[in-house]
């Protein structure tokens, strides 16, 4: 395999991902932060392609750049009044955050870089074989976690519906309607009972 194009792709995708991630954190308006998320997700998808994980390249584009980003933008637009305000940033907290995160980042990078990663000689399998292995593992060794994940998604679906319906529950029961409604029901029921 030719290494130079892969390296160029890696460096440009890494730069795209990191710069747009930095802009997500730095952006003054929330909607800009939301839109900066898109190149970041696309960059990570490209990195997956660099790693020859073809299935996750597509999954990242569909799930993150498609579904999750759209959900976040919807939430931004539903909380429209908050959108116009600039995100306040506490300066004393910012210093602490910088210190903590710098310590975390430096220590993580040191641990990862000092580990001697022996050079892998094995080529990853082709796309078809990789997807095959993934599917076999999903219905074999990982069958139970897979079912638990589907239950989790189902409960999240129901939970999202319940959360969205909470506000509308008190609206359709005004008191005058409640007084007038039972009477016709009783009169209707009586003939049915007689028959």
């Amino acid at each position, binding site marked *: 395999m030719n290494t130079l194009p892969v390296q160029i792709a890696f460096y440009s995708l890494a730069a795209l991902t990191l710069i747009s991630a930095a802009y*997500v954190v730095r952006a003054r308006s*929330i909607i800009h932060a939301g839109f900066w998320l898109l190149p970041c997700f696309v960059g990570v998808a490209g990195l997956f392609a660099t790693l020859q994980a073809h299935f996750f390249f597509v999954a990242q584009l569909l799930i993150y750049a498609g*579904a999750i980003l759209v959900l976040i933008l919807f*939430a931004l637009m539903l909380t429209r009044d908050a959108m116009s305000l600039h995100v306040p940033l506490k300066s004393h907290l910012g210093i602490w955050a910088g210190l903590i995160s710098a310590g*975390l980042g430096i220590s993580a990078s040191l641990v990862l870089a000092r580990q001697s990663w022996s050079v*892998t000689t094995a080529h990853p399998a082709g796309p078809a074989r990789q997807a095959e292995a*993934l599917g076999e593992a999903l219905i074999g060794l990982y069958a139970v976690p897979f079912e638990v994940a589907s239950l989790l998604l189902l409960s999240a679906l129901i939970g999202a519906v319940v959360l969205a319906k909470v506000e509308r529950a008190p609206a359709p029961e005004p008191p005058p309607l409640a007084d007038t409604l039972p009477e016709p029901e009783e009169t209707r029921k009586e003939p049915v009972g007689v028959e």
Partner: protein
Amino acid sequence: MLGVPTEYFLVLSGILFTIGVIGVLIKRNPIVIFMCIELMLNAVNLTFIALGRHFVHVNGQMYVIFVMAVAAAEVAIGLGIIVALFRSKETINIDEVNLMKY
């Protein structure tokens, strides 16, 4: 061998995770905090896939599937909570939403 060594991916995902941590710590809007959590989850996915390639094993990719499923569930529920909170309190600044604090 393949073009880019594994540790480059690991250091890159470490930096991406750190950017996410900075965002979670300094931002005051929960939706932006959600975005930064997504950055951190992406960094973790990148680590899993890089190590899965390094050890030529399907486990790394398998965990990414579950991380993506949990992230989707988390976004749906979390954003639902944020929108419900905004409807009832008219603000989502996390310094002003402190009813559970006392």
